[in-house]
Structures are given as structure tokens and as C-alpha cells.
């Protein structure tokens, strides 16, 4: 499938393009809407991602163009404020991703869902005459479509960790097959919070989206009741209002019937999946209830997983702010990128760090390390280490000299317990010909890898003594030349020591993973390796994982 991406200039663009390519799509990056239209029309692009200004206009043109009916048009942005969701859908967008998934597995799932939606929309246009009948009571064809729907929804929930965005796509899948209106609500401390909603009629969706995102309910509110009892309810007539005190706002668009199904997982009910019809002729039977229950079970698991993930990333974010550099320095001709994930559920502060900073005499140093200890001890030692490295780099050029300074500081400050630290440090200088000369020193740290532009992978540097133990560590500066497209990959043993179902991940599998990154940019390499390490441990790394990448521009 050809994919056209229009003027995407967000942090996730690079990884997204690479993920699309990895999934076998021919990716075209169009700078303007006009160029995108040309690509879409002349070459029959099946998927268009729009991120630029004038989103609505672009969507309309893409939809109205010949062959546009079953085209997947996805609008993407960083935040909710970036896109008016219902307006985009009304203008012809198939789905809205805020933000888009960048991991290939999640992207594949979301694409499947979007294509399902586009196919269905196209079918609706063609078969408008029989739409009424099709939306009626279940028949053979409807049942087949529903099982297709579930098949498309499942990978969506299995793959993605980005909760809000995933559930929005899920809600969109349920209309109009299963219902005319779909809500995903969670209940926390007596407050209903709307996580996602979708309606078959854009006007209804606009009304529902205009309601407050969160509101207080009493015990007799249907959402509160279903959460309390964890039993599904079928509601009729007046009682079908699942909007707390806000039902008045919907006027004549009030639901006539509703199915409210609990989102229960790991013994806890988090909220509800509410499906409603506004049409007196439509109802819900056992088949719909079974389908909704199945869907709710999967959605609940996704909600719960995402909660764990969000807690984890919140801790990681705080860590990154305090212990990791706010941003990596910019250096002409070299792209720097890094990734970091603390161990376990993210509640423990780990000992891995990375940093990049200017060095004496120009050039930039890229450092990665692992301090011993955990919690506050590790955090303070990380601070000391980074500060000392940065200061030493202002006066010393040789990586060994910088590391020796750090060693003296660590040995001098040892208390009852030692302060030990492993570091790999690379100083990068850009040569006149666009190549990069690197000097690499390793102190007790796994040797960095170089990924050549042609795909070869080699370990660089020589093993040296861990810092903080003896006053005279043996350290070596190892020179390495990097050409255009070559990438230097620094990592911590959280990757190689990852416990996978087939044993520790190990040096050889890491080298193979790095080899697979040939052609990718620095950010994508770091993201890919981090993802591989986390995924191989079923999402819960037992040690921190840190990766820093420097890639010479081509």
C-alpha cells in the first residue's frame, strides 16, 4: 500500500515514517496538500496521513477526489487541541490519531482499524438504499460483519499502550455496526471521566464532545451502578441517559436504548463501555450484549495496562527531568538521540544515565553509564557522576582523562559503601570532510557498537576498570572513524542482560538487533532498541535500559 504523509513535522514523524516503511508500505512524504493530492490521485495512495494546517480542507479534497471513498485518511496531531475531532471526521477523515503510534506493532493495529472503517464507509455509500435494513436486527450478513469488526478491534487493544488514542479508535469502530453512540467512561472517586466517544451521526458526536469531560454522579447513576455491581445493564427510554446530569444537553438526540457493560479486569471494575441507539426501531439483543461484553473485557485490560504504563512513564518522565539532560546538544553533521526506561514498574529510581555535552577544544562527548545502588543513593551518585564528567570535559580532551577525574572524585567520596560507576564515554569531533573522529574509553562498561552504513556491526573500544574502586584504573582511548551514515551505539547492560523467554538477550542478539537498524536515523535506532529490550521482557524490564546513539549524517 502506498502511504502519503503530508507535511508531518512532529517529534514522532521520523519513527512513524520508518514504521510505515517497515510494515511494507511505500512511503511518500508530501510537503503540501496539493502535492499530497497529486500523489494520492495519480498513484492511487490508499493511506494518507494529514498533519498540517488546513486539515479539514485537505480531508475534503482527498475524500471528494476520484477513488477517495475507500481511501484511509488519518489526521494526526500531538494534542487534543491540535484537531477538532468531529469536524475532521465530518470532513472525511477516517480516524484521528492524537498522537499517532510510532511502534510498528501498534501502528499496524491502528491501520487495520482505520482500513476497516474506510471499507465500511465505502460500503455504506454504495449500499445506502439498504442501509436501514442492514442497521436493523441482526442477520447473517450483520453477524459476519460483526465478527470482522471484532477481528479488527482485537489487535488494536492488544498492541497499543496509548490509552486515549486507542479507545477513541475502538469507539469509532463500534458505530454504526453495534450502536449509534459509543462511550468509554471510567469512574474515579464518584466522578465519571469520559475517555472516548464516537457517534454515527457527526452532529450527535459534536453534542457529546461538547459535554464536560468529567462530572460527579450519585450512586444511582447507571455508570456508578454498573461499576458497583460489575453487572451489565440494558436501559430503556428515559433511563437510557448515560450522561449524568447532562442529558438535557442532548435534546432530541437522547439515547432510546443503552447497553452499559462493566470494564472489569484483574478483579477491579474501572468504568463502563456504554453503547446506545437513538432510533426507536433499533435495539440490542443477546448477540450484541455478548459482543459488547467481549469488547469491554479487552478494553478493560487495555485500560489497566495503559494505567500501569502511564504510571511508569510518569516516574520515568520525572527521572528524565532531574537526572537526564533536558535536551541533547545540537552538533552539525551528527544526530544524537537517547532512550531510557527505568527497571520494573518504574517506581524505583535506577542507576543508568546518559548525557551529552561539549568538550574542551570543540566536539561533543556522549556518555552512558550505570551507577551502583538504587533509589536515592543511585540518584545522588548519578548527579555527582554527570556533574563531574561535564566539569572535567571543560578542561580535558581525552576521554580517559575525563574518566580518571571522575574516578578520583568517586574514590575520595566513598563512605561505608563504595560509589562505583561504569561509563562508556565517546568524544566526537567532526573532520573537514564530513567524517567524524571518535575517541572512546570504557570503564567497566560494555563496549559500544558501531553500525556501519553498509550494515556491518563491530564492538569498539577496550575494556577498562570500573570507576570508584581503585585509585589507578586501567583505561584506554580507542580511536574510531565514523563515515556518513555510520552510527555509534552506547548502551547499558539492561539490554544485554534482559531476561527473555530464551535466556539472556546477550551480545550476539543485540548485535543482530543493531544490524537490523541499518538505514534508520539516530532516534529510530534508540527507540527500536529500547522497544526490543522491553518487549523481550514482556514489558517489565528488571534492570534499567539506557541507549545513546550518535549517527553521522549522510
Amino acid at each position: 500500500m502506498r502511504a502519503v504523509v503530508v507535511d508531518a513535522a512532529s517529534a514522532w514523524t521520523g519513527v512513524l515514517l520508518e514504521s510505515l516503511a517497515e510494515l511494507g508500505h511505500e512511503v511518500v512524504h508530501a510537503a503540501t496538500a496539493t502535492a499530497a493530492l497529486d500523489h494520492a490521485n495519480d498513484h492511487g495512495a490508499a493511506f494518507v496521513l494529514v498533519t498540517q494546517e488546513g486539515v479539514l480542507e485537505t480531508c475534503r479534497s482527498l475524500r471528494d477526489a476520484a477513488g477517495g471513498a475507500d481511501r484511509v485518511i488519518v489526521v494526526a496531531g500531538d494534542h487534543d487541541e491540535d484537531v477538532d475531532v468531529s469536524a475532521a471526521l465530518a470532513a472525511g477523515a477516517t480516524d484521528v490519531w492524537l498522537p499517532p503510534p510510532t511502534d510498528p506493532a501498534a501502528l499496524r493495529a491502528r491501520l487495520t482499524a482505520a482500513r476497516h472503517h474506510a471499507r465500511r464507509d465505502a460500503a455504506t455509500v454504495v449500499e445506502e438504499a439498504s442501509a436501514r435494513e442492514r442497521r436493523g436486527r441482526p442477520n447473517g450478513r450483520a453477524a459476519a460483519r460483526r465478527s470482522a469488526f471484532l477481528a479488527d478491534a482485537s489487535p488494536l487493544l492488544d498492541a497499543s499502550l496509548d490509552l486515549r488514542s486507542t479507545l477513541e479508535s475502538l469507539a469509532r469502530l463500534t458505530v454504526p455496526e453495534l450502536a449509534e453512540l459509543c462511550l468509554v467512561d471510567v469512574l474515579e472517586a464518584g466522578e465519571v471521566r469520559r475517555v472516548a466517544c464516537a457517534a454515527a451521526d457527526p452532529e450527535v458526536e459534536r453534542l457529546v464532545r461538547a459535554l464536560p469531560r468529567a462530572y460527579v454522579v450519585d450512586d444511582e447513576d447507571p455508570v456508578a451502578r454498573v461499576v458497583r455491581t460489575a453487572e451489565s445493564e440494558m436501559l430503556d427510554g428515559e433511563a437510557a441517559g448515560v450522561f449524568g446530569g447532562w442529558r438535557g444537553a442532548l435534546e432530541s438526540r437522547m439515547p432510546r436504548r443503552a447497553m452499559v457493560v462493566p470494564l472489569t479486569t484483574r478483579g477491579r471494575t474501572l468504568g463502563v463501555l456504554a453503547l446506545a441507539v437513538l432510533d426507536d426501531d433499533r435495539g440490542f439483543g443477546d448477540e450484541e450484549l455478548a459482543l459488547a461484553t467481549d469488547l469491554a473485557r479487552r478494553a478493560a485490560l487495555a485500560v489497566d495496562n495503559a494505567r500501569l504504563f502511564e504510571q511508569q512513564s510518569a516516574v520515568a518522565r520525572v527521572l528524565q527531568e532531574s537526572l537526564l539532560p533536558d535536551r541533547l546538544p545540537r552538533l552539525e553533521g551528527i544526530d544524537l538521540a537517547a532512550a531510557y526506561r527505568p527497571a520494573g514498574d518504574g517506581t524505583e529510581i535506577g542507576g543508568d544515565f546518559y548525557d551529552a555535552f561539549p568538550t574542551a577544544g570543540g566536539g561533543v562527548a556522549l556518555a552512558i553509564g550505570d551507577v551502583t545502588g538504587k533509589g536515592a543513593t543511585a540518584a545522588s551518585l548519578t548527579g555527582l557522576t554527570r556533574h563531574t564528567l561535564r566539569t572535567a570535559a571543560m578542561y580535558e580532551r581525552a576521554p580517559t582523562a575525563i574518566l580518571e577525574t571522575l574516578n578520583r572524585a568517586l574514590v575520595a567520596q566513598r563512605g561505608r559503601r563504595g560509589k562505583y560507576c561504569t561509563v562508556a564515554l565517546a568524544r566526537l569531533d567532526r573532520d573537514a570532510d564530513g567524517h567524524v573522529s571518535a575517541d572512546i574509553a570504557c570503564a567497566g562498561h560494555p563496549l559500544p557498537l558501531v553500525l556501519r552504513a553498509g550494515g556491518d556491526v563491530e564492538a569498539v573500544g577496550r575494556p577498562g576498570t570500573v570507576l570508584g574502586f581503585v585509585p589507578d584504573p586501567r583505561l584506554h582511548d580507542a580511536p574510531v572513524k565514523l563515515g556518513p551514515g555510520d552510527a555509534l551505539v552506547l548502551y547499558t547492560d539492561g539490554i544485554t542482560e534482559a531476561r527473555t523467554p530464551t535466556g539472556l538477550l546477550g551480545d550476539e542478539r543485540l548485535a543482530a538487533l543493531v544490524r537490523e537498524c541499518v538505514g534508520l536515523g539516530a532516534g529510530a535506532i534508540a527507540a527500536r532498541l529500547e522497544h526490543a529490550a522491553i518487549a523481550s521482557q514482556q514489558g517489565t524490564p528488571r534492570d534499567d535500559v539506557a541507549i545513546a546513539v550518535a549517527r553521522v549524517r549522510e
Partner: protein
Amino acid sequence: MAIQIERHDEQDGIRLEVSGDVDMSTGDRLEQELLQAETEAPPTLTLDLSHVDFFDSTGLQILLDADVRAHATDRRLVVVPGTGEAARVLALTQVADRLNVAVIE
């Protein structure tokens, strides 16, 4: 994910034979066993790591601290790294020649 520590009282001191994983969750136990053995001031304390399946910076910290304590109190700490994970970490961190390393069997 567990650690087993067997203590053997031998002619010239105490020998701790560790197997399983030395990591964040099991490190404290190993450290406690070491400190306990040290209070008895054996002429030689042997830490046998040859049956360890996992050994990371947690294990390294415990090992290096024990060595520093031994030097400070004029005791002898002998480390048996074997050929597995502990040996790999000692090679990577280049500390083998600063410790009393024994090759046994």
C-alpha cells in the same frame, strides 16, 4: 529469580557458595550473609560465584565493598568467579587482578 547461599565451615575459614541470581531483589540477602560471616573473623572468607546465573551491578557493588572491608581489616577475601556470569562481569569491569581470585576445580 531466586538466590541460594550455602555456607560451608572449612579448615581455613568460611566458604559461601552462591547459586541463582544476584540482582536488586536478592542482593540484600547475599550482603547480610557476607556481613554475618565477617563478624566471625575467619582467616579466609571465600565467595564462590561459579554457580551464579545472573550477576549485575548489584552483585558488583556487594563484591567490591566486601573486598574493601577485607583490606581494611586485614582479612582475606577470595573470590571464585568460575566461568559464568560473575566471571563475565569481572572481565568486563577489569577488577579480577585487584581481587584475590581463585580458580578452583
